[in-house]
């Protein structure tokens, strides 16, 4: 059945089964490929989006529960000041290797910095632990989060 959902500030209609995960609606129905499929079990974080401001694994959100909540994806996160700074820090520090997990990392990092503008290492561990990086770029992810915080202070 058709579901009307709010993604990146725009209204979209997705005519899919009620169980369909948001991830596949984003990727295949709305053609927003930035949100990645990694595990389908909320274990890797590659599909992280913001749902009502919370970093959420879109592979575990059935489209039918979205209601009027706004979904923000990597494609639009640069429109927020925090998201923009996170992207800038990621580029400055050349964080990515293969890059596949990084959209999810950036979504989690942006949610963290929105809540906690100057996170400690412990805050970073806490907020980023759900995002796997198989290339293990964790050293730079941590540094880039701190750099984004610094950019906000500057």
């Amino acid at each position, binding site marked *: 059945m058709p579901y009307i959902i709010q993604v990146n500030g725009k209204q979209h209609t997705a005519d899919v089964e009620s169980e369909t995960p948001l991830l596949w609606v984003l990727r295949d129905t709305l053609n927003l490929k930035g949100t990645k499929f990694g595990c389908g*079990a909320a*274990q890797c974080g590659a599909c992280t989006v913001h749902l009502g401001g*919370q*970093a*959420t694994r879109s592979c575990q959100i*059935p489209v039918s529960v979205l209601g009027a909540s706004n979904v923000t994806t990597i494609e639009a996160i640069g429109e927020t000041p925090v998201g923009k700074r996170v992207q800038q820090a990621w580029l400055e520090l050349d964080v990515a290797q293969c890059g596949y997990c990084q959209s999810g990392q950036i979504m989690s990092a942006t*949610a963290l910095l929105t*809540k906690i503008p100057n996170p400690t290492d412990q805050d970073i561990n*806490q*907020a980023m632990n759900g995002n796997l990086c198989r290339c293990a770029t964790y050293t730079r992810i941590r540094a880039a989060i701190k750099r984004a915080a610094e950019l906000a202070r500057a």
Partner: protein
Amino acid sequence: MRYIAAFLLALLLPPAAQAQDATAKPETKGEYLARAGDCVACHSVADGKPFAGGLKMGSPLGAIYSTNITPGKETGIGLYSLDDFDKALRKGVARDGHRLYPAMPYPSYAKLSDEDVKALYDFFMKEVPAARQANLDPEIPKLLRWRWPLAVWNAMFTDKQGFTADPKHDAPWNRGAYLVQGLGHCGACHTPRGWAFQEKALDDSGTAFLAGANLDGWYAASLRQNLATGLGGWSAAEITEFLKTGHNVHGSAYGSMLDVVNNSTSYLTDEDLAAIGTYLKSLPADKTEPAYAYDASTATMLAGGHPPDPGAALYATTCQSCHRETGGGSPPFVAPLAGNPTVLTKDASSLINIVLNGSQPLVPLGVPEAYRMPQFRAQLTDQQIAEVVTFMRQAWGNKADPVTAKEVAELRKSTDPSSDQVVILRMR
């Protein structure tokens, strides 16, 4: 009562012509009753022939194996007359006179009508293919294998009366009572057991009936009208939905209830499921407790990103993405934790078990569920699981006791991780 011995295998099914039958609607009355009795769940194994037995089951004395109930003459029940079959089913006595272990729920099946026994007999004799597969010996020490004490046990604890309709109630209620007490043998898991492992009540005349019980590391929740820990907050329609699909707005099936939904209740007619709902809704609470009331402050705390303790922090990193900061999950696909009887109940075994071992896929009518609980056995320590489970039991207005690392450690030892493989047990 039933534990799956090992990692279950993928679908091993006979040639294509029959493959579709594995999940087909029952064709005969006998087959329907066999579904209602969930015979297949214990008398088949995932990679075995239908009803050929061989399932390892825990018992207080040691492991026993379910038996071959196909019409094979040498290894099955092919030589059973209707009377032999009836004795086994309703009295727990095999054709050769030996007494069955009460893992076979004959105390419940004693409630079956003669007509239904006959229909079941016809199904097993005429519709189930004979399978040559020898029964396995119980792993019970020799000295404890004497079966004569079972006669005494039977004399003390089984009901000889059969089911009598209660004229004070209408037909659907009585149909529900018949299914719940009899074929459904719900009490086998949901009724607490006494000193001799007997169910403390076999029908609604006892307040212990379906009052919740712990078996093999799982706590089967109370099915009585307790407001927070039972079905007091569930409508009859929601009970029906749960039995039909394995989940509803309040929660999802897990543990052996998965087998019940997969192999039994999802095949029942809407009328029968409604009857079960009607009957269960009539069982009064066995204790008074306040109704669950949602507390929004947990969600505000989690959304703020400053979890105050390790349990909340673990929830935020490990669980929140699916079960949400509200604890509301995404029902019916992802179970809510706020107000879920499994979370609220005094015995936290099931909740701990699910976190440790995850959940096997629900497969109502052959369609695997879209979402599945992963396991955290390898990812979290006993202490961490205790912390996160304690958090869930006290968040969003949930009011239940804390859990200790020791409880988790014991369950870790005595349980196995769930397989993610879809298992469909065939009846033909």
